[in-house]
């Protein structure tokens, strides 16, 4: 299927914007029986932004996948609506206007990435630069003056009035590094080395740089108490190693390393131990009332429980009772007001975004693109898994944003960049192969 599908794309985009506007209206009707006055503004704002993104995409990546943009639009828009709804309920920290502004910046970032990066394979040349940039970005919040600590995690950098989380961008840089490095080394990683019992051990010198990068990023993240990002990077690393070498043994080694690492971290670091404790004993009344206890987690569970199958309806639940319901816990807010049915639809949309990414990876013609597209799709899926698993108590809760949905500028910008990269790669993968014989007048002629 290499047709451009422009009509389908535009149609789906309009559909997504309409759903978001419907959601706004539904929030207003649910809260005070009126269509909110801001609906047209927000709706048109989102619609205009997405139309701009569509035009950029049609001009600079005409063969790109038709679904990525509409799917992301829907998720981003639903997040906006939920933040708006929580803001209406009187939560000071939630600001739909801010989120719309960040969405606009995200679309600008998306367009800039698409326009500036004509061929994503250029990134392969910056493999080690990307690796160093990733580590530098991770280390940035540790610096004395610009680093800021918010909510117990030192992951912020303050520039004037803005605070950004460099780790969000670091993960993109590190995925580029892993992709570039593994392309160069995958044959060695897959073939060379000793066989010990059932596991093929690689030679230390092949794996050295990757392990060092991984160790540094994990160390920094544990020091900064940003557990979500460290889990995210670790998973991305193992998944890309698996994609590159097709060795199940890597996954086994990764899981063992992870379980060991988690156990040791739980013993050493009190904040990790506290997370485990909250996860395992969330229903303990003492812990529920404790400071930094399971109150938030259980409120989220109660919210989803009261939502049930069909939800309370937008604007008719109490999602604002959960602390941080506009950022970390936006998924439970959705669960309360849209119910299991709505949550499944949202998860399906995420799944479709990831499917498009993996499809791009399959259709790509060179190994770097395959690894990069696979890695980027994986971190998106993995991010959704970590946060949704966290708020539903499947795994310990780690502070991570729900991609495109949670309030938070850095994550939005970084994820829009991620989508721009996927769009760029899908454009390259779906573009029909060029004509074999080119116009001779335009090409270099080699003379004997």
């Amino acid at each position, binding site marked *: *299927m*290499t*047709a*451009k*599908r422009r009509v*389908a794309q535009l149609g*789906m985009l309009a*559909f*997504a914007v309409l*759903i978001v506007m*419907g*959601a706004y209206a*539904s929030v207003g*009707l*649910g809260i005070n*029986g009126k269509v909110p006055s801001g609906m047209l503004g927000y709706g048109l704002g989102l619609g205009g932004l997405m139309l701009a993104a569509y035009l950029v995409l049609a001009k600079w990546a005409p063969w790109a996948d*038709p*679904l990525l943009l*509409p*799917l992301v639009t*829907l998720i981003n828009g639903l997040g906006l609506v939920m933040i708006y709804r929580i803001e209406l309920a009187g939560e000071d920290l939630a600001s739909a206007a801010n989120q719309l502004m960040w969405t606009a910046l995200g679309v600008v970032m998306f367009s800039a990435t698409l326009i500036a990066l004509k061929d994503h394979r250029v990134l392969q040349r910056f493999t080690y630069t990307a690796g160093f940039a990733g580590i530098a970005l991770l280390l940035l919040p540790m610096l004395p003056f610009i680093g800021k600590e918010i909510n117990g995690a030192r992951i912020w950098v303050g520039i004037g009035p803005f605070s950004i989380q460099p780790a969000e961008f670091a993960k993109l840089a590190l995925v580029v590094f892993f992709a570039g490095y593994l392309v160069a080394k995958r044959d060695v990683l897959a073939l060379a080395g000793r066989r010990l019992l059932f596991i093929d051990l690689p030679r230390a010198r092949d794996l050295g740089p990757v392990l060092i990068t991984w160790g540094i990023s994990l160390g920094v993240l544990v020091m900064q108490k940003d557990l979500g990002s460290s889990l995210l990077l670790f998973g991305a690393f193992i998944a890309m190693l698996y994609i590159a070498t097709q060795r199940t043994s890597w996954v086994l080694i990764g899981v063992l390393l992870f379980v060991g690492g988690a156990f040791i971290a739980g013993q050493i670091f009190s904040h990790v131990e506290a997370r485990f404790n909250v996860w395992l004993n969330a229903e303990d009344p003492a812990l529920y009332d404790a400071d930094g206890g399971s109150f938030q987690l259980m409120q989220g569970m109660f919210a989803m429980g009261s939502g049930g199958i*069909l*939800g*309370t*309806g*937008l604007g*008719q639940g109490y999602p604002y009772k959960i602390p941080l319901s506009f950022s970390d816990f936006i998924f439970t807010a959705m669960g309360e007001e*849209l*119910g299991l*049915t*709505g949550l499944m*639809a*949202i998860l*399906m*949309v995420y799944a*479709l975004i990831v*499917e*498009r990414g993996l*499809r791009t990876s399959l259709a790509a*013609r*060179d190994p770097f693109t395959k690894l990069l597209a696979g890695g980027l799709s994986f971190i998106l899926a993995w991010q959704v898994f970590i946060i949704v698993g966290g708020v539903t108590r499947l795994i310990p809760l780690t502070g991570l944003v729900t991609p495109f949905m949670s309030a938070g500028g850095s994550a939005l910008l970084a994820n829009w960049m991620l989508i721009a990269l996927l769009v760029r790669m899908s454009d390259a993968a779906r573009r*029909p*192969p*060029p004509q*074999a*014989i*080119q116009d*001779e007048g335009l*090409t*270099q*002629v*080699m003379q004997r």
Partner: protein
Amino acid sequence: MSELTLLLIRLAFLAVLWFFVIAAVGVIRTDLFGPRTAPAPARKPAKAPRPVSKPKKGEPRQLIVTGGPLQGTIINLTETPITIGRANDATLVLSDDYASSRHARLFPQDGQWIVEDLGSTNGTYLERSKVTRPTPVPLGVPIRIGKTVIELRK
């Protein structure tokens, strides 16, 4: 606003949300379940560009070196890609100062062989055009790498 209206809005919203998901799956239907057995004739020919059907009868079976120090070498083509360069692990190892260690790669895709330049210093030329991106190689068209010329033959 009555309870009933709100209930209807709520259900309608969920239905529309799922309709969006189903519509999205519809757009990529061919991706998920394979193309329909009878291709839709209404679709414009320009919109189905990739000529999956073989352009020529009979696929290339051999790679022949027609010029340079290795002239006369024949490599039988299988499903595996062929690498060309000065590196020892290349399929066709060149001893040519104008070739890079990993110079170019030939690989089969959809019944065609594609040549791709692997970032060589002096470039790969298909007939007289420099190969800047993976390009299909027709039968009998010379590929020039340094002093070496190769061709695909039946």
